[in-house]
């Protein structure tokens, strides 16, 4: 049964939803909708012959369902920026995470400030580690479009992070004190 097979993918899908929406409650709603959609369409799902292995194909399929629901939601809400951040949850961070807290929030803000399309490409490639071709399939875009979005997203994120307070740059150097 494919839904049992989906189980190991859920924590990653949940994180993907979290990074995509920028909000914990929205993320879980999005994941729940995705799973319900998957449940309805499970009988129709077949891994592509000659495609990636079954597990990767299933994950890509779930990601594409999530992508479509995410797009629909945004269309419905006509919302182009999620401004609300889930700061209430930051108290869950363990003490060991604290030194990284500022970096984390800045990166999260910068990520949320990207256009949704750029954020999706960036997350699929960097965090979900999909190949460009697989990301293009999930997003139903030509590979070239994925590449150009990726390139712009990276530059944009880099600039956004440079606008952040010094010392909070992910790729920059940290001064040892």
């Amino acid at each position, binding site marked *: 049964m494919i839904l049992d097979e989906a189980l*190991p993918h859920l924590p990653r899908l949940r994180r993907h939803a979290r990074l995509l929406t920028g909000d914990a409650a929205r993320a879980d709603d999005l994941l729940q909708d995705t799973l319900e959609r998957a*449940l309805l369409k499970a009988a129709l799902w077949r891994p592509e012959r000659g495609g990636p292995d079954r597990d990767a194909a299933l994950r890509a399929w779930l990601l594409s369902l999530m992508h479509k629901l995410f797009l629909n939601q945004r269309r419905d809400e006509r919302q182009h920026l999620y401004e609300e951040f889930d700061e209430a949850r930051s108290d869950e961070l363990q003490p060991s995470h604290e030194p990284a807290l500022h970096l984390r929030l800045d*990166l999260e803000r910068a990520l949320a400030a990207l256009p949704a399309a750029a954020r999706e490409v960036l997350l699929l490639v960097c965090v979900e580690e999909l190949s460009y071709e697989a990301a293009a399939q999930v997003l139903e875009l030509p590979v070239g479009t994925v590449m150009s979005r990726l390139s712009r997203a*990276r530059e944009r994120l880099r600039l956004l*992070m440079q606008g952040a307070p010094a010392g909070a740059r*992910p790729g920059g150097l940290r001064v040892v004190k």
Partner: protein
Amino acid sequence: MDGKEVHAMNEASLHAYVDGQLGDDEAAEVAQWLLDHPEDARRVLAWRGQRAALQGLHAQLLDEPLPPRLLQALKAPPPQAVAANAPRYRLQALAGVAILGLGLALGWGSHAWLRAERPAPLTAAVPAFVRDAAIAHAVYLPERRHPVEVGAEQQEHLVQWLSKRLGQPLRVPALQAEGYRLIGGRLLPAGEDEGADAALARAQFMYEDEHGGRLTLYVSVVPPAQAVPTAFRFSREERGGRSFYWVDGRLGYALTGPLSQQQLSLLGSRVYEQLQPAPK
């Protein structure tokens, strides 16, 4: 490279390099390009840092138990109940038995799954940390003014601080007897292959001989799955030198410099010896 000159590097290739989506030969070509083009190397390093930082965002969700309602959403209704808008209460009613099994499976197996589920890097020949070491070497080697963040005079402090950040006790080998003095070290962003819980930092130590020839020692915490001791190996030779690398415990080391294999392995073995615990 058959004496062929690459005159411009395709932007897409730089991205594909960062994302581990190039074959060995292409990756080597890009690595070579980066050695000669520090501006591109800086961008590549920044993108890798970005990638690693993004992978760290909300990584705690990967180990968190799933909320029950999500597990309930997975429970299939009986075939006749499949309808476009099956109300949630029906799913909930069916979920009870499954939850126990799912909970057990998740609680027990999630760590193993999640680790095993990470896609393998596409270019597995040379560990990612060695490629990062080569890039970092190329970037900082030519620096005359600020080759290091913290000079050797603050060595004790540097070592303590880096050890804390890496989460592993670190030692800085002395290579004076071989003609190289430590000029200092710096902290660098981690590459892409760190586990979510791994330290986010890597360290580079720079050494210099009396003629200004430089060596770098790159130290990286490796994810537990990759933390198997490896034999000493050499990476492919690049113009900026080659790397002599190994993994010991949770740390991966790469010593990079424009030296012969013989010289490099000699220095590498001196480093290795000094990293071993002192005999009691």
